[in-house]
């Protein structure tokens, strides 16, 4: 079974600051996904990373994937309050159709 660990689990940061959320996984995979969830809402897809070295950016968020280290990062640049949410990473096996989720990082951006 594939294990996915995120850290930190909780993150409180001031507006304008930078920070990184880490996602480690236990088994070889080349498919890594990042989702955002607002309180009481569903999950919204942010990034799909499909190869080693993949980097994607959308606004103040940038995601990267290092398949050799089994690590993905979600970097937040100059945080704003609207980024407050819970962020999940998910990994899919190279073969198969199951997705494994991390426990999520609850981000609060303080004005």
């Amino acid at each position, binding site marked *: 079974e594939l294990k996915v660990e995120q850290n930190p689990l909780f993150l409180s940061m001031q507006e304008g600051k930078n920070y990184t959320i880490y996602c480690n996984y236990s088994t070889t995979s080349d498919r890594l996904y990042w989702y955002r969830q607002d309180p009481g809402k*569903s999950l919204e897809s942010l990034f799909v990373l499909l190869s080693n070295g993949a980097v994607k950016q959308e606004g103040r968020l940038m995601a990267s994937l290092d398949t050799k280290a089994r690590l993905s990062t979600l970097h937040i640049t100059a945080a704003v309050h609207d980024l407050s949410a819970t962020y999940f990473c998910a990994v899919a096996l190279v073969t198969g*159709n199951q*997705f494994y989720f991390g426990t999520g990082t609850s981000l609060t951006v303080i004005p």
Partner: protein
Amino acid sequence: DAGITQSPRHKVTETGTPVTLRCHQTENHRYMYWYRQDPGHGLRLIHYSYGVKDTDKGEVSDGYSVSRSKTEDFLLTLESATSSQTSVYFCAISGMAGGKEQFFGPGTRLTVL
């Protein structure tokens, strides 16, 4: 947004009663999934389907069954609900193309008293 609906959106039931949750998609995607979300656990896969009448178990399948008689519908049944099945249930769909990205339904909040 991907066309995924779940019904009901909220349900309160009593221990021992059967419950069926429905997921309906309009995207004609092959794969459909049922997850439960609980604090501290992220999302955990209950069952998934890779085609009509083709289903498989996930990591927390005990106490749940599924059926998929049409491409667009995936049903999750709790044969005899227990309080430990109180949770938020999400359906997701995924296609064959590209990175098989998942799209999620709005969720069903189930409370078992």
